[in-house]
């Protein structure tokens, strides 16, 4: 199987194993099952760590910690949630621990009043948000857009950033996100709305500056 990933090998030689099958194989001592789990979900965990911390080394540390912890405790995984949700729960805790260790990103609250449409002195404001379907040349190329959004995300206080990443980037539902972060669904909705308004403001500021120099 040299030069061929385990996942590819499994796909060619057998049906693609489900997460439940992988967990069962792991419990029987299969190292191959562990390898497939990292191949299957490693990219998502790495990307999440990168968006949360902004540094590849931190993202790698978080991902390593996530999978090591998962394999140590996989025997106690009862399958009440999907494997990926469980991995994100571990990764979220790892991200928050890393942030606490660094102590350079204090959490702060975002007030809803700051984003009300038509605040006094703000009448008729139009947000400059590019149309995502307008094509790559319409506003910015993909790389530049990624940079603008990444920078805006990094300015979000961490407990908003984590919700935005889980809901809007990773696509977890409100209920799943609440379960991953162990907070109420209402808290998820509140933080998500404010995080989105914050992102809108930052993206718009960038394009306003671009337009007016």
């Amino acid at each position: 199987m040299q030069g061929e990933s385990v996942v590819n090998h499994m796909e060619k030689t057998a049906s693609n194993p489900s997460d439940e099958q992988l967990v069962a194989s792991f419990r029987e001592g299969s190292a191959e099952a562990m390898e497939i789990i990292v191949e299957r979900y490693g990219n998502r965990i790495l990307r999440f760590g990168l968006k949360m911390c902004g540094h590849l080394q931190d993202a790698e540390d978080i991902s390593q910690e996530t999978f090591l912890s998962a394999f140590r405790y996989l025997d106690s995984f009862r399958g009440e949630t999907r494997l990926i949700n469980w991995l994100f729960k571990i990764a979220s805790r790892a991200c928050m621990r890393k942030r606490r260790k660094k102590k350079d990103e204090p959490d702060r609250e975002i007030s809803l009043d700051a984003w009300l449409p038509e605040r006094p002195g703000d009448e008729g404001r139009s947000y400059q948000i590019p149309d995502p379907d307008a094509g790559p040349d319409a506003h910015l190329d993909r790389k530049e857009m990624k940079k603008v959004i990444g920078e805006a995300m990094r300015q979000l206080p961490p407990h908003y950033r984590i919700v935005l990443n889980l809901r809007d980037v990773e696509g977890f539902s409100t209920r799943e996100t609440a379960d991953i972060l162990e907070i109420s669904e209402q808290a998820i909705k509140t933080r998500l709305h404010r995080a989105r308004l914050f992102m809108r403001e930052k993206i718009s500021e960038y394009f306003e500056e671009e337009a007016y120099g």
Partner: protein
Amino acid sequence: MNSECRTYFERISEFLDGELDRDLCAKIESHLQDCPECRECLESLRRTIELCRRMAEEEIDPGVLARLKRAVLEALNH
């Protein structure tokens, strides 16, 4: 901006996510027809969400995943 705008502004993310009940959705839809500011607010937020969603398409260098896999397996074998 009136009190109706403010009430709906607080729920606009839930509206976009399809998390509101039918009655409230109908009220917001009706309000949007008559309120250009809220329509602008909704559209700019919709675009923002879509731009964030597209961040999920970001690729990680395959070498990084290979390094992660190696590190995890090595750590477990020691």
